């Protein structure tokens, strides 16, 4: 079997006394869409942030395409922090999309997408902007290149944020509740861009409350509750006959909500 895109081994994350993630073991296969679902406070966003190295795990290890992220831990649990430039190198294999978009307000859409190419990859300005335009076209926003974030709708901002992450040609895209900050009528355009990405074979890890999206696009669904990974498997298994009582309860809440919206 090939190396998984991401391997998480015995990952623990504590904030002071509080354990947010407890012994997470998970492999994310290459070219698949992996959805992390679970109630608020289950630790799913923290897990994703560990994958982006925005949070440093307390113990355990993450490898991206077989390369250790941030820390190397040997079999005896001895842990060593890797040098900063190596951390940066491994991190650039992933691109991240945030719930709050986090576009830089003082730069245009084109500026947001081309900035890291110019600054980090040292691509000449003209070429960087050309490559940024390719990404903006991909998310359907080439005609908004000169707009500042505040001149764009939430859905458009999130699509620019996706283009910004894609511009660095990551192997893996991480999405942290990408539609939670959007008005319901704007979620569709973002989910469509994500569907397109998935169909191109991008490896994606998506923390989401969009159970519909997870069910239709997700190829691996992982359910977290109270910092533990309770279930991970193909959607057919998880949605057809949920076996874990907590999972059943969680999905029921969503179904209830959907039903009450229809009533």
């Amino acid at each position, binding site marked *: 079997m090939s190396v998984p895109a991401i391997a998480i081994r015995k990952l623990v994350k504590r904030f002071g006394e509080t354990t947010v993630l407890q012994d997470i073991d998970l492999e994310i296969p290459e070219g698949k869409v992996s959805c992390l679902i679970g109630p608020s406070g289950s630790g799913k966003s923290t897990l994703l942030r560990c994958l*982006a*190295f*925005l949070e440093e795990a307390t113990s355990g290890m993450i490898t991206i395409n077989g390369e250790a992220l941030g820390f190397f831990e040997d079999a005896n649990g001895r842990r060593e922090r890797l040098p900063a430039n190596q951390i*940066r190198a491994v*991190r*650039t294999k*992933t*691109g*991240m999309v*945030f719930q*709050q978009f*986090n*576009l*830089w*307000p*003082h730069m245009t859409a084109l500026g947001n997408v081309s*900035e*890291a190419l110019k*600054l*980090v990859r040292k691509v000449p300005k003209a070429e960087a902007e050309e490559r940024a335009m390719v990404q903006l076209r991909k998310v359907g926003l080439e005609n908004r290149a000169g707009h*500042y974030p*505040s001149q764009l709708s939430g859905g458009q901002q999130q699509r620019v*944020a996706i283009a*910004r*992450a894609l511009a*660095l040609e990551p192997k893996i895209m991480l999405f942290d509740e990408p539609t939670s900050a959007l008005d319901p009528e704007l979620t569709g355009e973002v989910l469509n861009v994500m569907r397109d990405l998935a169909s191109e074979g991008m490896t994606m890890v998506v923390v989401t409350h969009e159970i519909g999206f997870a069910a239709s696009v997700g190829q691996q669904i992982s359910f977290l509750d109270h910092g533990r990974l309770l279930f991970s498997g193909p959607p057919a298994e998880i949605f057809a006959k949920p076996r874990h009582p907590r999972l059943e309860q969680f999905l029921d809440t969503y179904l209830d909500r959907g039903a009450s919206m229809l009533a």
Partner: protein
Amino acid sequence: MTPKLFTLLLEAALSTLGISLVSIAIGFVIAMLLSAALLSGKSIYILPARLFISFFRGVPLLVQLLLIYTLLPVIGINVPGIVAAIVGLSLCTAAYQAENLRGGFASVPPGLIEAADVAGFTGAQTFIRIRAPIALRLTFPALVNEAIMILKSSSLVSVVGIIEITKMAQDLASSTYQPIPIFASAALIYFVINSAIALLGRYAERSLKGASA
């Protein structure tokens, strides 16, 4: 009040303006370095920066100017009055500007820094391209305010032998026995200069906003 007297005041206004603008610019650079130090998270940089800020905010500018003017020659550095004036004003405004900037930096949403972080920016790149420009936009009105304060405070540099508006007005008043028209003219010149700074500031603020609103 003859045109000749008014011309003398205007000439003195040039030194007020020159000293103030140079000091504000130097002070801004120092303030940026101080904010970078305060944000570094390393106490080896934070503590000296804090000490600097509390000293220059806590001691009257007049005393600072006299201290610089008299202290430097003692340790073998002979400085002309103009240098002492610019050093004094720069260090003082640096402390105030650093405090303003610190507030601005603290208001930069952490998510914007995380976005730079995941894109592979180094700490310095994030500071220069993300944190500083955003903090600057947030603190711009306070910086304009500080420029006006410094321009007015520059009247104190007469103590180190600089002839600027206030000193010139005093000299002219005592030699011509016409204090009221002369001081009124001095007030008018300050008022016009500072109104111009405020207007320019508002204009710049609008165009900065235009670029992000």
